[in-house]
């Protein structure tokens, strides 16, 4: 098998890095879909991208640079993603307006800021393409180790608090009556999403992160008979899409991210058609 796990294999880090990001986003994405947070799934990755663009504009680095540039990218992505989340949570405490309005505003600002910082950056268009596609091929051993650590921490917290997250997502008022504060547990979910999105955007770009926050969850919810099964199906779809997508993009000489997304989208469409046909039969 598993030559690609060998440290000698040229694309090992790209395949493993992409797989970790896709699986992480797919599992958390089940809640993004169930809780109708899809707009948040677009806005936060875009905020992360804006943070990366700002850092590179300010420091003169580019997204494809190795070493220190990746640490800077992660810092920018984390800072911008959590700043956007902070604005949403803090404004939500006092505002009576629907949260979608604020998310829409953040998305518009983040998109414009990304374009502006990239336009002002010395590397310009090249930087834009690199930012949107992610830099899977540039993942170093250190980046991969960092990604694995963050993903493991997110997975552990998610598994430990799976019951609380389900309770407050399904019926927040009932959760309150049995002593589970929905605001606190929503915050935990947002922190997990923020961390996954920040590191995902740095690694695979905002398009892949958004797509995997939504597409595997949409397909898995059609197939899953329980929450556990739904998470497992979402992770399986993400695995097939990312590992299969990498092989396909390598052989066809195509950018990896869009191929990942098209495979995941193909699975979602196929599952939707099959389930509709089964229901009609």
């Amino acid at each position, binding site marked *: 098998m598993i030559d690609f796990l060998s440290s000698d294999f040229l694309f090992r880090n790209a395949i493993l890095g992409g797989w970790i990001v896709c699986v992480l986003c797919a599992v958390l994405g089940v809640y993004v879909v*169930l809780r109708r947070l899809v707009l948040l799934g677009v806005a936060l990755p875009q905020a992360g991208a804006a943070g990366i663009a700002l850092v590179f504009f300010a420091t003169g680095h580019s997204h494809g640079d190795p070493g220190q540039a990746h640490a800077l990218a992660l810092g920018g992505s984390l800072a911008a993603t959590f700043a956007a989340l902070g604005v949403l949570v803090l404004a939500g405490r006092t505002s009576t307006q629907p949260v979608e309005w604020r998310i829409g505003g953040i998305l518009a600002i983040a998109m414009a800021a990304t374009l502006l910082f990239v336009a002002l950056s010395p590397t310009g268009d090249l930087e834009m393409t690199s930012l949107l596609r992610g830099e899977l091929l540039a993942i170093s051993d250190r980046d991969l180790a960092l990604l694995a650590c963050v993903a493991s921490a997110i997975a552990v917290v998610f598994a430990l608090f799976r019951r609380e997250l389900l309770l407050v997502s*399904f019926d927040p008022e009932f959760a309150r009556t049995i002593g*589970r504060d929905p605001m606190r547990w929503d915050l935990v979910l947002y922190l997990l999403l923020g961390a996954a999105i920040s590191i995902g955007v740095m690694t695979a770009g905002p398009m892949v992160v958004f797509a995997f926050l939504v597409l595997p969850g949409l397909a898995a919810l059609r197939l*899953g008979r*329980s929450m556990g099964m739904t998470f497992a199906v979402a992770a399986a779809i993400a695995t097939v899409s990312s590992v299969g997508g990498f092989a396909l993009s390598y052989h066809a000489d195509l950018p990896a991210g869009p191929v990942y997304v098209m495979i995941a989208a193909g699975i979602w469409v196929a599952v939707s058609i099959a389930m509709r046909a089964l229901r009609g039969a």
Partner: protein
Amino acid sequence: MAEARIAIENADLGYPARPVLRAVSLAVRPGEFVAVLGANGSGKTTLLRSLLGFLPALAGRVERAPGLRIGYVPQRETLDDRYPLSGEDVALLGTYGDLPFWRRVSSRARSRARLALEACGAREFARRRYAQLSGGQRQRILIARALATEPSVLLLDEPTAGVDQASEAAILDALADLRRDRGLAVWMVTHHEEAVRGRVDRVARVADAAVTLEERP
């Protein structure tokens, strides 16, 4: 207050900028089945949310018995049926309040949920997906979930809205049995005055920013 599970004394209830009910005094007593009646917008839900402790009293006092457990049954339309949960999964949620996060769901918790389903006559369809159940069946599952919390007070928000007459009668009978067999205090918001007549001990009528209690309608 001697035996009351919840006592409200001369309390203004509602929201800081908008008090909804004025000078409310009432007691939620064990083993009593009470229907909360009133027109839309009269303040029934405000009363329920105050009993639940979601809305603190703006004036006056609301006292709860120490260690009080309240089983809450929300309107079932507020729940999203896209969640891939069976009726049994939903009932099991009622045991989560007693489970520390590091523990697996114990066999004791599972049997608590099963007993609650049985008490509501919901065992036979509990393995089916919640989304595929009828309105009356879903309601029984939600009552079972509230029972699985092992409450001494059961608060229900329009549990018979949108269900057929047979299901409504079955739900009301099940609630009456629970009140009798377990000594539960059952307070239920409803619009169906005719259906509850003869089944409840008291009616709490909500109108004109006040709550009036009528004995044995």
